[in-house]
């Protein structure tokens, strides 16, 4: 039989296709259905696990390696490797890992990420009795659930509220922070003038336009999705009120959309070009480096977002949540390390190093945390941290596109009803693809 060049090529292609198909179809050794045993005896643990985290960057990395991982490895014999990834590329890292069936044993993500990855079966269920034993406030557990089961736990929070310059309040004879959204609007207008804007809400120093909208949505008594995450609710009346509130303030001049600081420059609030501002607990690090006078006792007043429809004030909750990969080959060790990281002592060390807020005030005394006025305010008001992004398995698709829709409304390119319609269409489309 004569072998032609064409037949060799055809045979090679067929062999490559076969090998590829077989490789893709071949199962690994991990069992996604295997439950996590958080009661496993630590003496039985062995091997190695990996942690994928967007946190513990720069100076915070040494405390993670030396003060959190080292004692765990010494105690259990399990080694922990850290894969540190930028927040902006975390989704790509997880997505390629999922596609390749090769992902870290422990994955740290943000608020709103739990439901999408739990729905895809990437996160393993965490036993409810363990979570209840931690004594965390319900407000920090809301975004850890999917279909009534727990899939993540808060490790470090980034909380947002409002800050003001007390001298600006004193100059106008304002003695108390506002208690309602109407009062907030009035005070913002009163403080506007003489080169100062009443409220810096959109400069991006404490989040995106999307997050600014979500914060107000909750203040007006709304929420993003229904309980099961399958119906969007952000386009309903509270959503309309939230958008309209921002537009009205912009029309009055008490919120200035154009008031932005250049990259690397202090925010309008730091420059005292704004009397009040949206403030994130993470701003403390920037303040202490760039505007240390703001970190002095009493230099900045803080208050929660007042309610727009009665009820309680609200605080916006961002942060980093830890989950166990359902594809982990060493789930018990991963579970043991998650427990270790959630130990109050290690929560304190980690959050102190990162300048973030631990998910519980019950941690050992820590000078760094105690001297951070923003963290202290956040911890004192944890039960109000109910404004959270997400709540639907479709949220990863909604998340980025929502920014543009809100911006369109704020820049006058789209009316409020059209914006709400766009939001609904975006969510419906994403949910239909689940």
């Amino acid at each position, binding site marked *: 039989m004569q072998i032609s060049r064409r037949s060799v090529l055809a045979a090679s292609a067929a062999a490559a296709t076969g090998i590829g198909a077989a*490789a893709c179809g071949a199962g*690994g050794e991990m069992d996604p259905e295997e439950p996590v045993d958080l009661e496993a005896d630590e003496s039985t643990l062995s091997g190695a696990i990996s942690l994928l985290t967007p946190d513990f960057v720069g100076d915070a990395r040494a405390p993670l390696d030396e003060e959190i991982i080292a004692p765990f490895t010494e105690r259990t014999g399990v080694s922990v*490797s850290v894969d540190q990834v930028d927040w902006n590329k975390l989704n790509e890292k997880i997505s390629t890992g999922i*596609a390749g069936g090769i992902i870290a044993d422990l994955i740290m993500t943000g608020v709103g990420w739990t439901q999408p990855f739990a729905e895809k079966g990437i996160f393993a269920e965490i036993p409810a009795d363990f979570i209840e034993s931690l004594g965390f406030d319900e407000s920090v557990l809301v975004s850890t659930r999917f279909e009534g089961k727990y899939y993540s736990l808060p490790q470090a929070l980034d909380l947002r509220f409002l800050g003001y310059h007390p001298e600006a309040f004193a100059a106008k004879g304002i003695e108390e922070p506002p208690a309602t959204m109407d009062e907030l609007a009035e005070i913002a207008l009163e403080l506007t003038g003489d080169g100062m804007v009443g409220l810096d809400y959109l400069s991006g120093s404490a989040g995106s336009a999307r997050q600014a909208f979500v914060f107000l949505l909750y203040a007006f008594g709304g929420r993003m999705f229904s309980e099961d995450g399958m119906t969007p609710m952000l386009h309903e009346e509270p959503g309309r009120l939230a958008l309209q509130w921002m537009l009205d303030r912009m029309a009055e001049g008490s919120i200035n959309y154009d008031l932005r600081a250049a990259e*690397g420059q202090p925010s309008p609030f730091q420059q005292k070009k704004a009397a009040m501002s949206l403030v994130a*607990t*993470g701003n403390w*690090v920037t303040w202490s480096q760039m505007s240390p006078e703001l970190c002095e006792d009493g230099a900045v007043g803080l208050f929660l977002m007042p309610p727009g429809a009665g009820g309680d004030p609200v605080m916006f909750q961002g942060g980093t949540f830890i989950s166990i990969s359902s594809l982990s080959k060493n789930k018990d060790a991963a579970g043991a390390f998650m427990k270790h990281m959630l130990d109050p002592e290690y929560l304190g060390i980690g959050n102190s190093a990162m300048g973030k807020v631990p998910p519980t005030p019950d941690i050992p005394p820590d000078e760094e945390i105690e001297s951070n006025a923003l963290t202290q305010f956040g911890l004192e008001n944890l039960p109000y941290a109910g404004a959270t992004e997400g709540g639907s398995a479709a949220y990863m698709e909604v998340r980025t596109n929502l920014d543009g829709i809100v911006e369109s409304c704020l820049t006058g390119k789209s009316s409020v009803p059209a914006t709400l319609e766009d939001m609904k269409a975006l969510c419906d489309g994403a949910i239909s693809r689940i």
Partner: protein
Amino acid sequence: MATDTLTPALPRTDPSASGRTTSMRRQKRLGATAILVFLILSSLLMAAPFLWMALSSIRDPTELAQVPMPLIPQDLRLENYTDALARAPFATYARNSLILATAAAVLNVAFGSACGYALAKLRFRLAPAVFGWMVACIMIPFYATVIPVFLMVRHMPLFGGNSILGAGGTGWIDTWWALIVPGAISPFMVFLFRQFYVTTPSELIEAARLDGVSEFGIYARIMTPLIKPGLLTVALLSFEAGWNNFLWPLLVTTSDNLRVIQVGIASFRQEASTDWHLLMAGTTMAAVPMIILFLVFQRYFVDGFAASGIK
């Protein structure tokens, strides 16, 4: 009489002609000055971000916060560089970037020139189709190919504990193979080389064949030396792409000892804050090798782009 007609002194003695010449000279001088001023301003405008980066790299963080920020740093803070180096294992990251960039440059020159030469000078029936396919590949965005390439790397048979079917292990993930091999050839570089080879005389190939030079010898010793600007252009572009590569190394590596300098720079940005003084110091350190390379090879680089018609 004859002397009158031959004398060239007439224009010199004509005051109006002399004035016209002076005026033309002045206009030329003015024009040249205007062009020079325009070029200087344009150069400053282009260089401004780099100058700002270099100046910010030696500023104190509190000075960065001043509004308006002084143009010249008031307090030279060179320890920003030592702080940046201490913050992350920059020596390891720089070494990795250098290896990755050098490998990308060498491999792209080797494979790209061979492919480009074949497409430009060797006659085979599928040449136009292959060239069209190469050009089409240039239009595919990197993001569209990330997952397929990741899967190929992860399922590489007999590597990283994988079986012959590419399952059971991690393949090339977290190895130098994953960093280097997918970037070893780029359709754009093949296109660039093809454009260079097209401009070379085919008669040389025929003459070399008559002289008994092998086909590889014609490619390596006769034709390729004719496109030196092209070789340097591709080498520089590939080196630059390898040096600045961020996403791919981040996706296929998990350990610090394989991370590259761009990943190290990202460590100065946190979720809610950025250490601008350290970020600028790190960015300056990362930009210096590329600036030096460009300064040394800029003539070839510009010639290369001009010759390939992609200027």
